[in-house]
């Protein structure tokens, strides 16, 4: 069947979420009347489903092999997000949670996905107590002295929660961009042609790299010193993108103020798949609370001892609560904007 076929076009528009209401009615009529049309839609949906599985398998394999940075390709600048895991996992984990200790079943369940797992974010605590969350294959090098703390981001993306020490400023450098803080938290992402800095707490002093010599500079004249770029103060929720290629280094950093949800999106990579096997609910709640603004509160201390097996993303608080409601008949009630109180049914 060619793409020009009207039925094929209607089905492509339907599966591509671009169908008009009028065309949807035409498609519905065709499907109602014609078994061959339904078979065509089934085939197209099967292909779509198989392609998505294939893409998920490729992504996981590439992440494992570190191939994204090694091979220039259309996908090479795609950040590796542990969140982009196989579609299987995203909706299958509730089964394990709903039925509690289901380790053997979950193993069988997830065993169907034989591809290796992508690198997950990792946490590194520096000598001064600063906590660094490293995204996937990010690489840092720390160099601390009595008077300063310097960290070089050599690759990837990292979030720094800096321990206060006014006597020893904390500076992160990436591709000539330096970010200086005392006690604050910020995210730095080193891309091919830019460094992105997002402040999540406190403020930082941002020093862009020196600008390149002005275009048109005479080759016979003495080499000009690169002009020092002006410093920039960034406050919490501000994000700056600093160009780092010689051609664009003179461009002023692009600064924007982010909403909490935009910040959450940028930092979503920090969330990871958490696996619990017959783990006391108290521990599961503590692990989720450490990683989320929304806090779970166990109203009944006995609940803390309830053992739970689950495989879930660390930001899926509401999904987890829903499963406790459905799988364990718990009650969940919001308290204020940032707490959910879990209790046994009356």
């Amino acid at each position: 069947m060619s793409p020009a076929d009207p039925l094929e076009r209607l089905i492509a528009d339907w599966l591509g979420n671009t169908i008009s209401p009028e065309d949807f009615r035409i498609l519905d009529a065709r499907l109602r009347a014609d078994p061959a049309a339904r078979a065509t839609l089934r085939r197209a949906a099967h292909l779509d489903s198989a392609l998505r599985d294939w893409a998920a398998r490729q992504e996981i394999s590439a992440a494992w092999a570190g191939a994204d940075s090694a091979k220039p390709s259309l996908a090479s600048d795609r950040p590796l997000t542990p969140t982009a895991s196989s579609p299987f996992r995203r909706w299958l984990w509730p089964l394990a949670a709903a039925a509690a200790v289901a380790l053997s079943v979950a193993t069988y369940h997830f065993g169907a996905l034989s591809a290796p797992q992508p690198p997950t974010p990792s946490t590194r605590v520096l000598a001064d107590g600063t906590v660094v969350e490293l995204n996937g294959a990010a690489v840092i090098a720390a160099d601390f002295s009595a008077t300063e703390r310097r960290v070089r981001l050599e690759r990837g993306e990292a979030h720094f929660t800096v321990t206060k020490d006014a006597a020893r400023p904390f500076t992160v450098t990436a591709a000539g961009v330096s970010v200086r803080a005392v006690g604050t938290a910020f995210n730095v992402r080193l891309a091919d042609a830019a460094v992105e800095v997002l402040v999540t707490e406190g403020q930082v002093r941002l020093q862009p790299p020196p600008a390149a010599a002005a275009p048109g500079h005479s080759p016979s004249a003495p080499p000009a010193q690169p002009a020092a770029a002006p410093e920039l103060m960034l406050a919490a929720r501000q994000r700056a993108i600093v160009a780092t290629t010689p051609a664009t280094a003179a461009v002023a950093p692009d600064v924007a103020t982010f909403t909490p949800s935009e910040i959450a999106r940028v930092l979503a990579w920090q969330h990871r798949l958490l696996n619990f096997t017959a783990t006391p609910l108290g521990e599961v709640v503590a692990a989720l609370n450490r990683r989320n603004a929304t806090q779970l509160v166990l109203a009944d201390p006995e609940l803390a001892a309830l053992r739970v097996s689950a495989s879930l993303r660390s930001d899926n608080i509401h999904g987890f609560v829903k499963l406790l409601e459905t799988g364990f008949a718990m009650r969940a009630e919001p308290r204020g904007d940032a707490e959910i109180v879990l209790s046994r049914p009356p």
Partner: protein
Amino acid sequence: MPDHPEPPAGSGPTPAYEEFVRLFVAHEGRLRAFVRALLPTWADVDEVMQETSLVAWRKFARFERGTNFLAWVATIARFEALDHLRRRGREQLIFSDAVADLMAAEAAQEADTLEHQRRALDHCLAKLGEAQRELLLLSYQPGARLHEVAARTGRTVQGHYKAVQRLRARLLDCIEGELKRDPA
């Protein structure tokens, strides 16, 4: 009998749960393709599959052993899909009952040839160029957004959409040829 089996209390999965998971996993591929046919985006499909797995588990006590599990769970999925679109005010994208009934019945009757189709797909993907596979990879990775992928590949949204549709049509033709040449 309760609507769903009692949650296992810390000593391991119950036989009912094991049976449910075994059945669900065995039919997951065809169920997902069925749900995909009823919904316009993968985000919709993921949510409906999640809800379907929960609802099906809750109702599993009502499933008659020995009958067609796929037919049973597809009925649940069909209503979950309908409910999903209604709750989001997208009633104009709900197939008529007649179409949904027919699709569910036919999905339950079709032979399980997923593995065969998957091999055919792998073979057909191998015939594409590297850039074409990259385009599909970007377009089908979980969470992919049309606008973002189009921008990344240097195409207009319309141009990107057409390029993907051409590749899909080519793959469908190729898979059909493979399956005819080497029937399961």
